[in-house]
């Protein structure tokens, strides 16, 4: 049988990197192929080539026996390819309907037929049981819902091939289960699926076949039947990876972060966090579990001085921390790994070195009396790039040249090397490969063991479960329960996260 998608000898170089090197892959009708690889291995580049977003240097892409014109998205769509992108490709200020219909709008003459469009979106969301409010403005929606819109967009046309580039990075466990169900259903109906993820259990759960990339090259093909998660990780990284987190018991000390009666509003001036109180002790990791959009972002920003506290106080090591003063809070010994590295955590046109010192550029030894010391910065950057294994030819390169995972490493490296009393880590491993996840987790634990109080916010329930000494479940801007991390019940927390009472 002719393969549905056939990628033959595809190569693509960017200045300084060979992102794809002579790659050939087939995807058959109804088959789910998982594409694995470390950050920067070239997965996104490969699938973008298929979708016409990247023009390969050489090689051919054939679908149902027809060659697709390279670098032409419209052609790819015509050939029945749909794609869910690693970075959301949504227009934040537009409604859900507008986003979904964009590019092929129901219309009468030149006019968009709003009603028909709306009905179509409602029907679509019913069909795949992916619930969305058609009239909501995208930027007002939590990321999980935004991801749903991305998926609906891709599913809207009758597609033969669906590409998913890390669709589950921002979803809750329940949402992931739903997504995997959708994928299985689609495959059963004959759609070929090319699926990129860093979560190996997802691969084990749905993939028919697994293709692994390393440094732009195809290093192997396997299937869940032939191997296990450890095996997959080893294939990707080229070494043994410890997937389960190893940590000793917490040596809990005094309260380092004390939040009292905190209330915060969101961008639309609606209540996001209400009368929130919490204590985090030095030497423990407190994980906040919750579906995204339940006030976690606002909570973190208020703690770090980035968002106005309407009410209540935040104390660090027994002293009041200032409101609306990120620098002041930072100087009290609070480190912050922000959830959106591109938006908040990095200045992408700056060098990696400048980014590694982004919130310390004014402190000794990086500056003295307002004059910057570049030698100190570079020495520091050189050390961190090595220590955190940031994959780059030079720390002088701009942050924009890094892959997503490596960008995250820059942020983590910066925040975890400051000997902070309090570390606020928001989605610290989002979109990061297994090798790096292992590394970041180890760093967080060693920070805890070094006596820091770690507040971990993650939509990744597994991450929360495996790292936290205590778990606070957040729903609707409040804590609904605080549970001991040891032996916490996954199902129980899941129910709390969904707002169901016990």
């Amino acid at each position, binding site marked *: 049988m002719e393969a549905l998608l056939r990628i033959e000898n595809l190569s693509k170089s960017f200045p300084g990197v060979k992102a794809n090197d002579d790659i050939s892959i087939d995807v058959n009708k109804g088959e789910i192929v998982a594409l694995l690889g470390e950050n920067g291995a070239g997965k996104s580049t490969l699938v973008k080539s298929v979708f016409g977003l990247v023009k390969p240097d050489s090689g051919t892409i054939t679908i149902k026996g027809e060659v697709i014109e390279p670098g032409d998205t419209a052609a790819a769509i015509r050939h029945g390819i749909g794609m869910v992108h690693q970075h959301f490709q949504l227009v934040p200020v537009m409604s859900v309907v507008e986003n979904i219909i964009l590019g092929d709008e129901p219309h009468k003459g030149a006019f968009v037929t709003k009603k028909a469009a709306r009905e179509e979106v409602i029907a679509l969301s019913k069909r795949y049981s992916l619930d969305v409010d058609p009239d909501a403005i995208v930027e007002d929606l939590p990321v999980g819902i935004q991801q749903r819109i991305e998926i609906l967009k891709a599913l809207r046309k009758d597609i033969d091939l669906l590409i998913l580039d890390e669709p589950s990075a921002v979803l809750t466990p329940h949402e992931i289960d739903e997504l995997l169900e959708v994928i299985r259903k689609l495959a059963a109906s004959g759609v070929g699926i090319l699926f990129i993820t860093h979560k190996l259990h997802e691969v084990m759960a749905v993939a028919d076949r697994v293709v692994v990339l390393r440094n732009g090259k195809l290093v192997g093909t396997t299937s869940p039947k032939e191997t296990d998660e450890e095996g997959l990780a080893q294939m990707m990284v080229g070494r043994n990876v410890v997937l389960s987190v190893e940590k000793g018991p917490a040596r809990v000390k005094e309260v380092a972060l004390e939040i009292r009666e905190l209330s915060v509003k969101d961008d639309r001036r609606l209540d996001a966090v209400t009368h929130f109180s919490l204590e985090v002790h030095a030497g423990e990791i407190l994980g906040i579990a919750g579906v995204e959009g339940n006030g976690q972002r606002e909570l973190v920003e208020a703690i*770090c001085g*980035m968002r106005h506290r309407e009410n209540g106080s935040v104390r660090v090591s027994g002293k009041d921390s200032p409101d609306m*003063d*990120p*620098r*002041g809070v*930072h100087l009290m010994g609070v480190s*912050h790994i*922000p959830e959106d590295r591109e*938006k*908040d*955590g*990095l*200045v*992408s*046109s*700056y060098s990696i070195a*400048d980014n590694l010192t*982004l*919130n310390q*550029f*004014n402190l000794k030894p990086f*500056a003295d009396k*307002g*004059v*910057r010391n570049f030698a100190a910065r570079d020495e520091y950057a050189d050390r961190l790039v090595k220590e955190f294994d940031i994959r780059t030819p030079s720390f002088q390169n701009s942050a924009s040249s890094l892959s997503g995972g490596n960008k995250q490493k820059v942020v983590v490296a910066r925040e975890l090397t400051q000997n902070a009393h309090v570390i606020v880590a928001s989605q610290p491993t989002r979109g990061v490969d297994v090798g790096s996840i292992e590394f970041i987790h180890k760093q967080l634990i060693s920070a805890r063991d070094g006596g820091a109080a770690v507040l971990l916010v993650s939509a990744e329930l597994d991450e929360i479960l495996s790292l936290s000494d205590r778990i606070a479940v957040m729903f609707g801007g409040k804590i609904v329960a605080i549970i001991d991390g040891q032996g916490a019940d996954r199902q129980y927390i899941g129910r709390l996260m969904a707002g169901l009472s016990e």
Partner: protein
Amino acid sequence: MKFKISRDALVPVASVLAALAIGAILIAAQGHSPLEVYKVLIVKGFQSTAGLQATLSKAGILIMSGLAITFGLRAGLFNIGAQGQVLSGALAFTYIGYRVHGLPIWIHLPFALLVGALFGALVGGFAGYLKATRGVHEVISTIMLNSIMAAVVDYLTQNQFRLKSQPNTRTPDILHSARLPHIFGFPTGFIVAVILAVVVGWIFRKSTVGFELDTVGKNRNAAWYAGISVKKSIVLGMLISGAIAGFTGGMFSAETTGYFVPAFYSGIGFDGITIALLGRANPIAIIPGAIFIGGMRSAQSAIQFQAGVSPDIINLLLALVLFFATAPLIAKMIKSNAKSITTTSGWGS
């Protein structure tokens, strides 16, 4: 590597040549000799002592106004209405310059310049304040402030600040103790401008304040995350941009005009935009562009008188140079990898 650098440096040179070539066609099309025109341009603008003096004097003002715009651009602010700040600085300078008697030059001149810069800073800073606290975009506020300042300045020159013995609207002459002395005939303003460029260059290269402004210009969210007060930076960026503009107005009065008439200052603020763009918002890189434009401007009249070509050819040549220096055509032709210029990304709301 060396080879590549020299190629990048070739871009501006080739751009000038390309502009001159197109200019030559236009000149010839009007029945004049391009060679003669360009000879006059070089002799009058760059060869004769008087020409060079005029060139550098003009270049000094261009550098300063270019710095004013550059300072804003680096902080993500487009101070399109620097003209209003130039005007208020110039008038404030002039007032101190003619009104305050009995000070020695080394006090009077710097003091008057400081007051000029202060008034420029007030106008610019007001726009910055409106942006930081009320979200009023600086492109609107500075354009509106331009007109407002023009009216205020006009009112003052017609009334309180007017030289009553003259039927025409002008201020009294600025006292000698507030005029800029020439050092051996060398335009002092140019030296001041170059020093200012070096200082501004240093601020953005080495100082933490410069880094803060740059960061706010590049990614406001990340700047806030990194503990930089975005609001303060916006006010500061506009304040200093305005101060430099006001200072420029003062320097122009001190070196060139000698008294105040609003029309003397027309175009200074807008010229600054061209210069800043030509120099890619790099404080040092604006210097050669300013000298080049200064030279063309100072030869403008001679071109008309001696070669019979409309002096507007100069503005045309300038546009062509800016075009070729920024469009990737030339760079591609000589296989340079010179990065394309960016100033601010978008309106940087």
